[in-house]
């Protein structure tokens, strides 16, 4: 990033105005909680009072209990780390490839004409369809799983980066030309900052897809990982384990996204957005 975007911190005067609407916002948030909390409590009560068995749909207390047991026994952290490792490696590879090829496609017409048709054709294939081939090529273990995740991450990042470069404001590019910036200075001082917001959004959707594909990857014969926990719960007839794994997925996904957002926010303080990002 440019030194200017990183330095000069204390400008936050614009952050205050949202305060006034807070109380109203709280009420609206509470309204959104009514349905899920109500259903959960209702189901809990129904099972408690013997109106339902709760064998296929365990009550919330049992799910939490299972979750706690999994966490205590260390089983949960084994699975979480296995999943996180696969997502991290797959995301890293897919994002790196997406940024690289996206940059090529966005920057030069020739390489776009060369690359884009093929990549668009490949994109039309549902990623899961690669699974049998990846297993044949890369074996049943980690490599094929990571490859599937990387493919899932690659496309949104590629599209986002290429699109961001192509839509850089011509007017700002001209400012760079008027001041006779060198090519590398143009990239550093105009291109990179201009594409940063869209690139981050592309990385976020890539990360989301990474979590989606890790489940698919772990369905195909894993011995650990949250996806394995899902399959295991099904085969053992333990819906509480399945739901505990789902909760873990939700937490992990949200956490990873939040980290990505928090890590990049300082780079985007200059942005003139209509509201704070989601």
């Amino acid at each position, binding site marked *: 990033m*440019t030194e*200017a*975007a990183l330095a*000069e911190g*204390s*400008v936050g*005067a*614009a952050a205050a105005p949202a305060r006034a609407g807070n109380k109203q916002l709280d009420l609206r948030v509470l309204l959104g909680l009514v349905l899920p909390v109500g259903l959960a409590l209702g189901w809990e009560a129904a099972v408690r009072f013997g109106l339902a068995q709760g064998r296929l749909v365990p009550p919330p207390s049992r799910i939490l209990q299972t979750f706690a047991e999994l966490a205590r026994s260390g089983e949960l952290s084994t699975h979480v780390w296995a999943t996180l490792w696969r997502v991290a490696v797959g995301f890293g590879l897919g994002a790196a490839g997406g940024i690289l090829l996206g940059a090529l496609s966005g*920057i*030069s*017409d020739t390489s776009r004409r060369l690359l884009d048709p093929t990549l668009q054709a490949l994109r039309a294939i549902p990623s899961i369809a690669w699974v049998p081939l990846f297993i044949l090529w890369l074996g049943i273990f980690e490599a094929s799983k990571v490859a599937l995740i990387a493919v899932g991450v690659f496309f949104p990042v590629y599209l986002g980066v290429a699109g961001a*470069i192509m839509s*850089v404001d*011509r*007017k*700002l*590019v*001209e*400012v760079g*030309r*008027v*001041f*006779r910036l060198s090519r590398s*200075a*143009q990239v550093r*001082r*105009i*291109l990179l*900052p*201009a594409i*940063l917001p869209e690139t981050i959004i592309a990385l976020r959707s890539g990360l989301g897809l990474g979590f989606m594909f890790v489940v698919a990857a772990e369905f195909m014969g894993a011995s650990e990982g949250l996806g394995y926990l899902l399959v295991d719960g099904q085969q053992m007839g333990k819906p509480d384990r399945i739901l505990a794994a789902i909760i873990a997925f939700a937490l992990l996904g949200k956490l990873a996204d939040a980290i990505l957002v928090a890590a990049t926010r300082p780079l985007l*303080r*200059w*942005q*003139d957005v209509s509201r704070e990002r989601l």
Partner: protein
Amino acid sequence: MLVLDRLSKTYADGTAALSNVSLQVRPGEIVALIGGSGCGKTTALRLIAGLDRPSAGAVRLDDELVVEPHPAIGIVFQEPRLLPWHTVADNVGFGLMDRPAAERREIVAHALERVGLAEHAHRWPKELSGGQQQRVAIARSFVTRPKVLLLDEPFSALDAFTRASLHEHLFRLWDETRPTVLVVTHDVSEAVTLADRVVVMRPKPGRVDDELDLGLARPRDRMSAAVEVATRRVLAALDRSLKPVQNRPAGGPAGNALWW
């Protein structure tokens, strides 16, 4: 001396935006370009700035051919075009990145002082008003001390009061280094306030219709009889240039392959 020598520009779609425009501007002279919409004023400035190539003819600055952006030629666009990811100070210093940081800071601080924005140095462009942003753009174009400064309707989006105060700021900056200034405007009173000479253009194809030497002393009193007479002369010339022509909206310039 800035010389436009039989300058012509025909766009790829066949639009003859400029045809045979010749003009000479002395060092330190302020020339206003006026004329109806679509008569090639922006096109002319873009050719001088080296952002586009002429179809025929040439732009010369002190006998040097201008075919690409020239270090001694600066331009202020109709929009401020500040880089949103740079603070106000870094925007002003945008053309000075090859200078040592201390020197840059000093020049920037001085320029911001001159346009009355010293206390806004560390804010983001999004936190400024339109008029303040345009002042930053003007400061940015002055800090590189260009010999020629091109202004493309820099104040057209602003109210009359802000505009008058920007004329002041502009004039103060101009007075320090006395660059040649070529300013496009739709506003006759702006032309008369700023310019030594007014060039009236006419569209289809864009060409020079008339040139008026105002011969007004500085500083100018906008209420004086001399200014009033000059204003009437310019209005009359503008009227003549507009007579047989119906206005056309100007098309936005297109450009692909921005990077490579």
